[in-house]
């Protein structure tokens, strides 16, 4: 007894078996788990099972890819940004021929602007972004000062609440408008101003775009932006030259899958034949791939550079 209890005393990492007497005499239970005989599905990947899957992938991906990729007919006026640093008014040289039938989204774009820089990301307050007005409440000043009159009456002294901050802090450089004056609408001002919030959702990459405005579709008959010439006036508030940044102004429609991006289409289209050809490499019987064009609305985009 005494000795058997000693078997349990090992260094770490050793199994403690509570005495051979207790354990050893017991016959191991004949359960499927303990005998490692649990019923198991033992899949085997063979050409027979994998190749049809490849074909299916191929068949599925090609229409998706084609659907995603079908080019848009928008105007791409990505002229070099030679005068980003001044206020600018732009007149379209060609008539605007695309008739957007849906909402038109107006983006502003920036390049080489490291909004995802850690210093920047860190400076963001999440509750502001959530538009939580409570978090924006300035802590109420509960301090009150009284003058104790010799007669015993208390006279409150008026405390001036303004003029205590530097004026430069109130109107920081390059802030054309202070944060409390972003919008006339009270519900869209200050830190819950949507422009501000959009801006503060830090972009993923140094070249990015952000949604600025939406041009709502008026009625079913009229295009949102009818054909014709448009002019754009940009006031240069935001200096980007110091970091060689560039600005863009983008008008775009949105499809069900978001803004225009050829990547997905290309990727799907390339993967599909690859999968199929791999499959057909060892499968002698190749089936002809039928493609169907789907009728989808596709993203169109008008890119302009101020």
């Amino acid at each position, binding site marked *: *007894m005494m*000795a058997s209890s*000693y*078997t349990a*005393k*090992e*260094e*770490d*990492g*050793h*199994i*403690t*078996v509570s005495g*051979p007497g207790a354990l*050893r005499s*017991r016959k*191991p*239970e004949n359960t499927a788990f*303990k*005998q*490692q005989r*649990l*019923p198991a*599905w*033992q899949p*085997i*990947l*063979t*050409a027979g099972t994998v190749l049809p899957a490849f074909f299916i992938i191929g068949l599925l991906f090609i229409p998706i890819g084609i659907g*995603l990729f079908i080019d848009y007919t928008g105007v791409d006026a990505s002229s070099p940004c030679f005068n980003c640093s001044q206020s600018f008014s732009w007149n379209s040289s060609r008539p605007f021929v695309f008739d957007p039938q849906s909402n038109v989204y107006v*983006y502003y774009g920036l390049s080489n*602007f*490291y909004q*995802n*820089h*850690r*210093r920047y*990301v860190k400076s963001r307050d999440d509750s502001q972004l*959530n538009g939580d007005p409570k978090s924006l409440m300035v802590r109420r000043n509960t301090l009150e000062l009284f003058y104790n009159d010799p007669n015993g009456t208390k006279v409150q002294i008026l405390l001036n609440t303004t003029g205590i901050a530097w004026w430069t802090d109130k109107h920081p450089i390059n802030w054309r408008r202070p944060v409390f004056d972003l919008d006339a609408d009270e519900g869209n001002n200050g830190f819950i101003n949507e422009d501000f919030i959009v801006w503060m959702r*830090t*972009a*993923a*990459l140094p070249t990015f*775009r*952000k*949604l600025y405005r939406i041009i709502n579709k008026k009625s079913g008959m009229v295009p949102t932006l009818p054909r014709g010439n448009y002019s754009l006036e940009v006031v240069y508030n935001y200096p980007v030259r*110091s970091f060689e*940044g560039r600005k863009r102004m983008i008008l*775009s429609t949105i*499809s*069900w*899958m*978001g*803004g*225009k*991006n050829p*990547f997905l289409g290309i*990727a799907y289209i390339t*993967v599909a034949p690859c*999968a199929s050809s791999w499959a057909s490499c060892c499968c002698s019987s190749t089936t002809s791939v039928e493609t169907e064009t789907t009728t989808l609305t596709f993203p169109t985009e008008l890119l302009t550079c101020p």
Partner: protein
Amino acid sequence: MAEGSKGRVYLQQVFPLGTDKTRGGEVLCSREVAFPLKPVEGLIQTETRLFCSSADCVTPLFVGETHQLPQRTKHQSVFSPSTLGPLSHLQVPLKAPTVAPASAHATPSPGTGTADKGPLGRDERRVDSRTICVGHRSSSNNEAFIPPKFCDNRIVSSKYTVWNFLPKNLFEQFRRIANFYFLIIFLVQVIVDTPTSPVTSGLPLFFVITVTAIKQGYEDWLRHKADNEVNKYPVTVLEQGRRIQKESEKIKVGDVLEVDEDETFPCDLILLQSSREDDTCFVTTASLDGESNHKTHYIVPDTEKDLESLNATIECEQPQPDLYKFVGRMHIYKTDQEPAVRSLGPENLLLKGSTLKNTRRICGVAIYTGMETKMALNYQGKSQKRSAVEKSINAFLLVYLCILVSKALVCTTLKYVWQNKPGQDEPWYNEKTKREKDTNLYLKMFTDFLSFMVLFNFIIPVSMYVTVEMQKFLGSFFITWDKDFFDPEIKEGALVNTSDLNEELGQVEYVFTDKTGTLTQNNMEFIECCIDGFQYKYQDAGTDLDGFCVTDGPVNKVQHKAGREKEELFLRALCLCHTVQVKESPEQGQGQRDGLMDQVDGLGVDGLGRMERGSIRPHRSREALSPPHLMRYGFTFLGFESKTMKILTRDNDVERYELLHVLNFDPVRRRMSVIVRSKSGDTLLFCKGADSSIFPRVRQEEVERIRMNVERNATEGYRTLCVAYKYLNAEEYAQADAGLREARLALQDREEKLMAVYNQVETGMSLIGATAVEDRLQEEAAETMEALQGAGMKVWVLTGDKMETAKSTCYACRLFQRNTELLELTKMEAGGVRSDCMSSWTWSSANHDYGFIIDGATLSMVLNSSSESNSSRYKNLFLQICQNCTSVLCCRMAPLQKAQIVKMVKNSKGSPITLSIGDGANDVSMILEAHVGLVRNLTLKLTKRSLITVSDRENGIKGKEGRQAVRNSDYAIPKLKHLKKLLLAHGHLYYVRIAHLVQYFFYKNLCFILPQFLYQFFCGYSQQPLYDAAYLTMYNICFTSMPILAYSLLEQHICMEVLLDNATLYRGIAKNGMLRWRPFFYWTLLGVFHGLLFFFGVRYLFGNPALQDNGQVFGNWSYGTIVFTVLVFTVTLKLALDTRHWTWINHFVIWGSLAFYVPFLKQQRLYFVFANMLSSVSAWLVIILLILLSLLPEILLVVFRKPRGPHAGQMKPVHSSAGGHQSPRSSARPLLMRTFSDESNTVL
């Protein structure tokens, strides 16, 4: 046995000098001449002496260090030899370990100089002796005696107390390099301004530390409980004539204790009184060294029966861990008499932990208590074992550490290069704080470097250690649970004591096995005997035996008959020459022939008459012909009657012989003798032993007649034993008696002295005859061996047996096949050794199987060649030859030689993983040398208990007594046949599982962190993390941990039956095949590929971040979330792809953790990023695309490589008689370069 061979090197006595790597106390040869050291006043000379001994010269090879003599203690002078009375010339001062006695009158007795017993290098304190007053009655003539303080009898095996648990456990844990690394990372995060919050790395670390601490705390609690159970155990103490019940922990040194039958001894006791008439008691030390036979212990001679009046002191050495060594002496003070001095040896010492058997009650005095008992000294913690897998992990870690550092360096460098461009460092919108501007540039660089390190540190997974440990811990239960390992006879299944080496079972390359008891059952079946050259055969099957063979004469005489006298002498010799104990059955009174053989395991022997349960307990299992057999021939051993052996002769007479001396068996002498005095007054010496040790000691003219028989028997595979006798005349006897007594009383070098006397007495005997017994093969021994060979393991048989016997056993186990070409390298009769044949030896044909046979004498010449250069050359040659042979047989081996062989192979090129199987007694040294050792611990006959011990080198180096390693065995299986499943199925699966686990872990963390690294190029090297802190923390803990754990526990890429049927599959994973650099690089490349794909796939998607159908744009957190989602799904599905054995658990865990990912994210804060992502079709499309794209190449690889796969051939089960026919080089090696460990699917 050393005769004739020149220049052998013996390790005579080696102290475990701290870090000294030699094992202590091995004495190979007794011919060493005392090597006197000049006593230097005030100095102890401890020496590590290496003797080179040949027949007539002893050359010390080197003499070791010198130690300062510890201060003599006061009480020692009390026992200066002058006070010792007439026996003093026998006394060797206890301090003798080469102490020059300080007092002038101390006469250095012979042997003083050679004595070097104390483990001085380890602990000088132990050089001292301790003095104990029996029953705390200090002797009257010993006023100066101050009772020394000894520790109490509390056993403390626990490591922690409530108070020191936290600090001590934390300290222990952070000593592990991995934990320490993570701690450093955590601290850096706390101190430096780092991108991720300290929580991200603090939480996993905290988790790991807490889990480990809880586990260790629980284990320690168990230890506390066990300690308490031991410490509170009630014992009976005799105090002033009263018997007092005490708790075990209250026992003090000097207490007289009473122990009843079947109780364990609470501390180390000197036996004072026994209820048996013959002043002996029997104990079993099964729980100490695994030997379950009954050992006889003797009370100290001449102690008074009345313990009350006993006034004695005991002087003995300080506690030392060796279970089989003890020296001390007892001074018995009687009124008006000179004090008597009795020597104490191991036969008087009852060890804590052993159990009293067959003796109603004993009394003994406690001499070592608590942590100083030999048992406690032997149970010091084991060192952690490192398996080859762990070494691989460490190597991989190093690579990843390099990757990590280089990533951080690249980022830091690029950051400063990039910032050099005007405007980049500080755009107006992104100004630095004042503090940032003021900091020193280099300090900033360093901080940045640290920040990057922190950002990328997840590449080295904390959780891998946890998972690996959990896998090992939980996985080992499957061995315990396996019902195939359950042996109904002994009602025991397999036992796993360490889970650290599970996977090593799948990597064994060399199997060293003992023959007796391992390959064979050690279940002796009498075959024939030969008396005086005439052969007697035993032919019936035991059916016609009634229990009472009286006067039938020798059965079945074959040829002629030797003289009846000779026959009887032979049978008498066998009856007397043994150490069998007979238990008297209490219920049948002392009926003369009712001697029930000591019942131990309850095995029925031939159901002879009244010997229903006669089982015999020879001291050595190698007793060839045991008394029960003799009953058939009319001689019955009836047992002892206080030093008198009774035998029942053919004529139904009872003969009594007074047993004078037993010259014990030991494996070096290979013989044992008894000296008895017959009624007529003749003194006889009977000796039996191996032929090689008997033949040189008998008159040569008798040898030839019997030698022929012996050799014939040996060729047939029987075990032979020769019997000789000698009449001792009074003078000779007196001389021998004196010699033996003197040697037994010696405190120093007792064994050497005994050996010398034995050798002296056992000469000039006459040979009577020889016996042959058959040792049956173990169940399925041949199939097992065949399977092991088929699996590419090389089986070496290391045995002490004769070559012929061993060879035939090898043939029987199919280790040698008919077409095996045997190469023998043995000592020839003339004494010359064909050692030159080794160099001129060439391999004739490649596809031929070779077996190699070498014997001990030759081996010692090979290994211990006199000149250095020759030695290494021979060794290399020998090794080369052996490695090219499928099986090697080494016979006539001394225990130390077994160890030498194992060591040699283990240290050979590539350090192959070795596994030893032995029977625990004489194979311990070999087992200690092997990475994986199997020790079979034998009991006789049907009840066989075997232990597989996986022991590590460290134990051996520490010079611990080998049996403790056996006792602390790591794996135990009941039978040899279970070895096959253990290695081929369990070992294989464990290895594959853990290898996959490790590779997968590195892979999944690489593709986890690579996108984060790439992101630095797009965020101005600002250490902006790509993933949210929650992802960073939870990735390894929650999202991807369970599937791999389930996989690593349940995976059976090939099902067990197939593994067992096709031993060749084992070769596929040989030499750590799945954890070598090649597969590692494959996995790394895979990780890089996936990482790149994830990052750039999403990067191009974010070319236009307006991804929702309402035109709103996604920011950086969405980016990270998409990458992370792809990542989690891909790595989980990758594992699903690798899983070949889908149990419901796998399904549950894999699909469950994917399902868990989704709801978890919906609820978490992340600013609804995930929900927004789900509403974006593009995000969905890209996720699907990327997952498919990253998995497609894998699938293709699996599918297309399959037909050419190396395992294609394995679909046809290789049922061939494996081993011999398959060239080891035809192994299915290519598995390791394949992508999937498990693409070799199961075929059903």
